């Protein structure tokens, strides 16, 4: 084929790879289904994608564990192969690409130059800002440096995972590397956060697919997450929700309630405050999700989830001190301390009250002797009752 990769439409790419229309329609329908979008959206998407251009994608990995990429590569529908070969042009990813060293960096520079203003940047991992950004360097350049350079010509930045979206685990107290989410560093580019630790693979690929189809940013929530996937809480869409409503709760991980599949609220499930598509899209090709496997949601797609107290403390429980310390001892001490100080202040108030009382009783009774002075009879004007 004479067409250069970046000039190809997705339809061209499909034809080149001998993907039939039916196969592609099926692919889009499955993608829509995986993303819990209406089937008609899948049909529309198939049409839009055929004529859309394949966007160039630069995938940057910073302070991360590669879990997000591991997740992404396990996307069933659309599969990562389908995505990379058909829908996007993945021009840089230091983990997946065959090139290395200077050649790899060259690929990035070329992608930036050739697609300036049109390419998509995917960021995986938080950006350490402490000590000049030395905690994450590649090719002698710090993460923040590479991010700033790459972000400049980006059409949009897609933050994959809670680390790049909200700081994630590196950001957790005490944050020794001074890690920041991308949105705290780049202020002038559109940002899409696909949070989760890791994010659901279909949510990553689905968002990219939608972006490829429409060429515009999807609807985002206040945390800049696509509402299509982050619009509902886990709790809202949870198949165990009826048990919550009925007040049936597992009290431990091996009790009757747990075996009966009752609600895990009391075991610390963060479903009610966590927005993600786990309960609908599920994991491993729609096999299951944590709650279905008997473990409460840990809220990994929410900002600061690591610092919100014990993963096993119920949402309504009091939270004392730092993460994970739900000690009633501390609360007892505080409360007792408050009560003791209160009692002391109360005793003071009582003394003051008594003093005041004695002052009012006074030693000057004769001077105020209204009642006792025989001459000073009471002045009485009876009000007549109406």
């Amino acid at each position, binding site marked *: 084929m004479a067409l250069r990769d970046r000039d190809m439409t997705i339809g061209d790419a499909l034809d080149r790879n001998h993907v039939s229309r039916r196969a592609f329609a099926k692919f889009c329908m499955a993608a829509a289904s995986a993303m819990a979008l209406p089937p008609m959206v899948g049909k529309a998407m198939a049409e839009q994608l055929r004529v859309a251009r394949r966007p160039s994608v630069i995938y940057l990995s910073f302070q991360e564990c590669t879990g997000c990429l591991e997740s992404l590569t396990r996307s069933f529908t659309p599969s990562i192969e389908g995505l990379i070969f058909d829908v996007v042009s993945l021009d840089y990813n230091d983990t997946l690409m065959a090139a290395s060293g200077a050649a790899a960096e060259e690929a990035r520079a070329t992608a930036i130059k050739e697609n300036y203003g049109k390419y998509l940047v995917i960021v995986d991992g938080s950006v350490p800002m402490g000590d000049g950004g030395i905690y994450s360097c590649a090719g002698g350049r710090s993460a923040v440096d590479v991010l700033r350079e790459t972000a400049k010509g980006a059409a949009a930045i897609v933050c994959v995972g809670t680390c790049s979206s909200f700081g994630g685990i590196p950001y957790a107290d005490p944050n020794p590397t001074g890690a920041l989410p991308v949105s705290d560093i780049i202020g002038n580019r559109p940002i899409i956060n696909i949070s989760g630790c890791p994010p659901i693979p279909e949510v990553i690929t689905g968002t990219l697919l939608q972006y490829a189809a429409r060429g515009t940013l999807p609807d985002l929530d206040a945390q800049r997450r696509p509402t299509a996937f982050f619009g509902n809480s886990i709790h809202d869409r949870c198949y165990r929700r009826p048990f919550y409503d009925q007040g049936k709760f597992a009290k431990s991980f091996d009790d009757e309630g747990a075996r009966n599949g009752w609600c895990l609220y009391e075991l610390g499930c963060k479903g009610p405050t966590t927005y993600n598509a786990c309960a609908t899209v599920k994991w491993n090709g729609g096999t299951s999700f944590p709650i279905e496997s008997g473990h409460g949601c840990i809220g990994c797609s929410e900002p600061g989830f690591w610092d919100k107290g014990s993963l096993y403390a119920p949402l309504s429980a009091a939270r004392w001190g730092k993460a994970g310390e739900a000690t009633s001892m501390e609360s007892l001490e505080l409360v007792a301390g408050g009560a003791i100080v209160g009692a002391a202040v*109360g005793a003071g*108030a*009582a003394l*003051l*009250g*008594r003093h*005041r*009382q*004695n*002052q*009012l*009783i*006074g030693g000057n*009774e004769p001077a*105020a002797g*209204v*009642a*006792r002075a*025989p*001459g*000073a*009879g*009471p*002045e*009485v*004007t*009876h*009000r*007549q*009752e*109406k």
Partner: protein
Amino acid sequence: MNSPPTADLAPTPAARVQGAMRGFARELGALSAFRLDSCIHCGICADACHFYIATEDPQYTPIWKVEPFKQAYKRESSAFAPLVRLFGLKREVTAEQLGDWQHLLFDSCNLCGRCSLICPMGIDVAALIEQARHAMFEAGLAPPELYERAALQSRTGQPEASTEPYRDQLLAIGREHGVVIPLDLAEAEVMLCVPRTDIEHYPDAVAALARVMTHLGVRCTFRSDGLIAENYGYFAGGRDWQREISLRLIEQAVACKAKTLLVPECGHAYTALRWEAADLYGKPLPFEVRHVTEYLGEQLQAGRLKLKKADTGKVTFHDPCQLVRKGGVTNAPRELMQAMGLSVSELQNHGGFAFCCGGGGGVIDLKGAAPLRYRAMAAKLREVDDTGAQAFLTSCSDCRRTFDDAREHFRWDKTPHSLLEWVAAQLAGPQKSQP
């Protein structure tokens, strides 16, 4: 009313407030503070009060009657008093406010204690009102009818001047009724006293008391220096005067080594002597205090009092508040009536829940309070009518006087009778002579 006050100096507003605060402070303790703090403003006490029920006027809500003192408490001695003063959260009580409250604390409260039984928070509202009266007294705001009588009684022992001393009137009653009036015996088992209401209005009741005591054969005596049962100091809120008046009786009872001080048919005298005198005395009394109804009930139980059956049909009984609700003497009058073979048709509200006659707490003596009092007592009269009883008994001469007054005012066809007089009339067997 005796000589008009020679007042040339009405107390200044500041002195009034100072006086009220002094009276308030003298009374305030943990218990009353607790009560003042507990009120949740539910207004339920209004529904116990006959003044509110008759008028539906919110100002007669019992707890509202102590509002200035609630205010003073919050300002002066509550837990947050310094903050309340600092931020001016409660205004200082003013003389004008106190003046307005005179009507609420005296004219429209019989200290009957019905509100103390309804309060869901368990506040003894009547106790607070009694304390508020003390403060009003100190502010010079006790009504003159009560103030004058209290002043005179504390000075002379007699709440009103009389042409003939009460002592002589008492002896005269004895002569007229042909009963022995034991007077000024050096020693006696029981010391007697007499309501001046009975001397002036109900001499039969005085004679009945003597007759019953003679029947019982108990060595008893009146004492010239401690003759009058009433305590106007209690009504007026003059704590010191109340004490002085009580002390006369206490001293006389101590002097004649009485084992029992017998309070005649007078409700508030019973409260003053039975429940308050010892506290004013500062130590337990060396004798017991009994209301004559209570005493006769005890004698009946002990088999010393023998009564003939009366041939009257249905009677009804008005429970004096101070005797029953505030005094705990509920069964004795009923036992006595039963012993006389009377069939008692109870009032709709009876026992501890009876409505006050409307005259208690000194209100019967307040001229200006009469119109309101008549409105408040109308329901009570209806209750009496509704029983269909042929006779209407009570055991408090102030209640009796109030009903008698209503008889004239309303042209009511019922006459209140004294339970004591009925008992005296039904004494069985030969009278033992007094040793």
